[in-house]
C-alpha cells in the first residue's frame, strides 16, 4: 500500500557521529552509563517509527600504540546488554547488535541471540562482523588477526552453524518468534559483498552521495540475484548523519560549531587511532611524520600510505592535516539543511533506487536524534513515506519480510 516506504535505522554507538559531538551542549556524555538514557532513546526511536536500533561494536579499547585517548568518548558498553535492556522498555523497535564471528563460537552466538530473540518477543537482529582491527587479537590470546578471506570463510561456517543451533532451539521451545534473528551485514570488499549477498537481510554501507548509493545497491542486488535470492528481500541502508537548521545557513553554522568544539589535541588523537600509530608526541606545527607512521602502524601499510602521502607532499603540518581528517565524514553522507530539505533528499534517494532507507547516525546524542524525530519524521509521514504505526511485533514484520524465517537446516 505504501509504495517506496523509507526504512529508518538508528545507529547509536557512542555519543554521536562527530568525534567532538560529546562536548555539544545537547550531548549527555554521562547518559551512556545510565538506564534512564537508554530508555529515553529507545522510546524516541519507537516514536520515530524506526525499524531498529543498531549498536556497532569493537573488541579492542580505543587508542593507538598503547596510549588511551583522553579527548574521545569511550568506552562503549556491550551492545547485546544495552539492546536487551532497551527491549524491556519498548514494544516494537528492532534491536540489532553487532557481534564478531572471529571471536565467538557458534554456541556462544546462538545462546546469546536466541535468548535476546525470545525475551524481546522476536525483535533481535545480528550485525555480523568479522572484526578488522589488529589490536583485537591480543585480547583473545592471539598475536594477529586471521587474513580477511579466512575471516569471511569462518564467518560463513559460524553463521551456518548458529542457524542450525537456532533451529534446534526453536524446535525445543520456547519458540524463537522469528525463527532466528534477522541477519545484517556491512561488507565492502569482494569477500564482504559476496558474504552479504548470500546471508544478509539488511545491509549497511557508506554512500557519500546518491550515485554512490545507486552503485552500491545495484551491485548488491545483482549479487543477491546471482546466488538465487530475491533482491526485494534485502534492505540496503546507507549511513546518514545530519545537522538541521531553520535555514541552510543556520545548519551550516551549527555544523561548523560542532567541528569547532574539537581542538588540535582531539584531532591528533582521532588521527592516531585512524592511522594505527600514536602521534601525540609530535609537534602539530611540524611536518607529518610519515616514516614513523609507516614504521609503527598496525593497520595495512598501503592504505595508510595512501591516506597520508598527498598531504605530506604538500607539506601540510600535522595539526592541520589532523583537523581536516577529522572533518571528513568517513565516506558517509552528512546532510546540512532544513528538515524539509532533508525529507526531500531522503525521498529522492529512495525514488532513485539509491537505498531502501537510511541508517541515521545522529551527530551528537541524544540531541541529534531528538531533532530528527521531532522535525523530519512528521514530514516523511505527511508525505506518506514513513509508517505511522508498526505493522506487527517482530523485526521481520517491521522490515516487510515474512514474519517467520522458514529455517532451513
Amino acid at each position, binding site marked *: 500500500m505504501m509504495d517506496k516506504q523509507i526504512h529508518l535505522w538508528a545507529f547509536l554507538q557512542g555519543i554521536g557521529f562527530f568525534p567532538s559531538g*560529546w562536548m*555539544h*551542549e545537547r*550531548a*549527555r*556524555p*554521562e547518559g551512556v*552509563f*545510565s*538506564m534512564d538514557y*537508554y*530508555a529515553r532513546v529507545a522510546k524516541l526511536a519507537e516514536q520515530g517509527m524506526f525499524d531498529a536500533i543498531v549498536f556497532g561494536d569493537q*573488541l*579492542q*579499547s*580505543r587508542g593507538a600504540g*598503547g596510549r*588511551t*585517548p*583522553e*579527548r*574521545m*568518548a*569511550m*568506552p*562503549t*558498553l*556491550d551492545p*547485546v*546488554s*544495552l539492546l*536487551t*535492556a532497551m*527491549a*524491556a*522498555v519498548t514494544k516494537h523497535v528492532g534491536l540489532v547488535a553487532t557481534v564478531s564471528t572471529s*571471536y565467538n*563460537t557458534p*554456541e*556462544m552466538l546462538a*545462546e*546469546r541471540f*536466541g*535468548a*535476546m530473540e*525470545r*525475551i*524481546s*518477543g522476536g525483535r533481535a537482529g545480528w550485525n555480523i562482523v568479522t572484526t578488522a582491527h589488529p589490536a583485537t587479537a*591480543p*585480547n*583473545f*590470546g592471539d598475536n594477529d588477526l586471521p587474513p580477511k578471506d579466512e575471516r569471511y570463510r569462518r564467518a560463513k561456517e559460524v553463521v551456518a552453524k548458529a542457524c542450525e543451533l537456532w533451529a534446534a532451539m526453536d524446535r525445543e*521451545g*520456547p519458540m524463537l518468534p522469528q525463527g532466528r534473528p534477522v541477519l545484517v551485514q556491512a561488507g565492502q570488499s569482494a569477500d564482504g559483498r559476496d558474504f552479504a549477498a548470500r546471508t544478509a537481510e539488511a545491509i549497511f554501507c557508506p554512500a557519500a552521495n546518491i550515485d554512490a548509493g545507486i552503485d552500491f545497491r545495484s551491485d548488491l542486488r545483482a549479487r543477491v540475484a546471482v546466488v538465487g535470492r530475491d533482491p526485494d528481500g534485502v534492505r540496503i541502508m546507507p549511513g546518514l548523519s545530519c545537522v538541521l537548521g531553520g535555514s541552510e545557513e543556520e545548519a551550516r553554522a551549527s555544523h561548523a560549531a560542532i567541528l569547532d*568544539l*574539537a*581542538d588540535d*589535541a*582531539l584531532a591528533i588523537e582521532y588521527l592516531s587511532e585512524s592511522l594505527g600509530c600514536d602521534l601525540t608526541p609530535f609537534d602539530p606545527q611540524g611536518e607529518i611524520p610519515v616514516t614513523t607512521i609507516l614504521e609503527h602502524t598496525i593497520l595495512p601499510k598501503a592504505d595508510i600510505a595512501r591516506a597520508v602521502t598527498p598531504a605530506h607532499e604538500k607539506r601540510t603540518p600535522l595539526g592541520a592535516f589532523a583537523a581536516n581528517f577529522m572533518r571528513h565524514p568517513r565516506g558517509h553522507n552528512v546532510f546540512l539543511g532544513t528538515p524539509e530539505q532533508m525529507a526531500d533528499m531522503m525521498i529522492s534517494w529512495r525514488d532513485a533506487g539509491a537505498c531502501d532507507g537510511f541508517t541515521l547516525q545522529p551527530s551528537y546524542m541524544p540531541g541529534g536524534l531528538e531533532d530528527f524525530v521531532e522535525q523530519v519524521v512528521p514530514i516523511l509521514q505527511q508525505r506518506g513515506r514513513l509508517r505511522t504505526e508498526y505493522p506487527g511485533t517482530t523485526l521481520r514484520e517491521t522490515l516487510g519480510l515474512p514474519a517467520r524465517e522458514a529455517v532451513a537446516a
Partner: protein
Amino acid sequence: MTRPFILSASLAEAAFAVPQSAAPILQAAEAAGLDLLMMGRSGARPFDAQVLLAWAAPITTRLGLVATVPASNAHPFHVARALSAIDFLSAGRTGWSVIPEGSPDGMAEDMVGAARALWDGWGSDTLILDKARGRYLDASKVRASNYEGPFFKVAGPLNAMRPPLGHPLLVVDGDDPIDVADADIGLIGADGAAPAATRRLAKVSLDADVAALSNRFAAGEIDGVHFTLTDALAQLPEIGTRFGSLVADRIDATGDLRARLGLPIPQTASNQPGGAVVPENA
C-alpha cells in the same frame, strides 16, 4: 552496618526465557524481598543468563541480579564487558557465578582471574567528562591487564568501564565449587562445606524452620539462606510470607548491592578500593 540476613534464590525454568513469564517472576522476587536472584544453576541453564540479566535490569529496582556463566562456553573479555554494562544499567545490582561443570580443571578460576584483571584495568575515577576543557577521561588511570592464565591470555584494556560495584558480586556454589579464596557469597553445599566467601548462605527448602535459621544467623553460623526454585511464580510469594520477616528491617534500604549487603570488594581481588564513579556532567 549490622550484618544483614541475605535472602537468595536460583531459578532455571525454561519459561523464564519469555517476557510473559519472566516479568511476573521478577515482580514476585522483588515483592518477596529477595536480595539475590541467580539465573540458571549447575546442571540447568536453559537460557543465556547474562542476556536475561540485562532485560531484568530496567524492570526491577532492588533485586540483585546474578548470572551463571558456564566456563565451558564463555570468554572473559565478553563476560567482563557484558557484566560491566549490566552493572551500569542496574545501578550496581549485578553478580555472577562461574559454573565449572563441563570445563577442564582450573578454567572457571582462570575466567574469574581474567575478568577481575580486566575490571581492574580501569580506575574508579577514570571518567572526567569535562566538556568545557574537552577532557573525557584520565588516561593515566587506564592500563593493559596483560593477563596470562592457563586457559586465557587477555591483553586489555577492556573497552568497558570498571563496573559501579568495582567487581560484580562473585557467588560460589558449594555443590559445584570453584577454587577462589575470596568470593563474596558462598552457598553451603550438601556436604556442609562452606566455600571461602565473605558471606555464607545455607541452602534450604521452603518448609525450613524460620526460628532455627534466625538462631543460626545470630550465632554467626550463616549469613542467610538460598532457595532452589522449581516453580518460581508459586514459590516466591510463599518465600515472602514465611521468610520476609528476616529481611523486613532492610526492605527500604537503598544504594548499590555492596553497600546494602555490607560487602566491600575483597582486597585480594582488586587494586582499586571501590567501584566506578560517573561524574555529573557540567
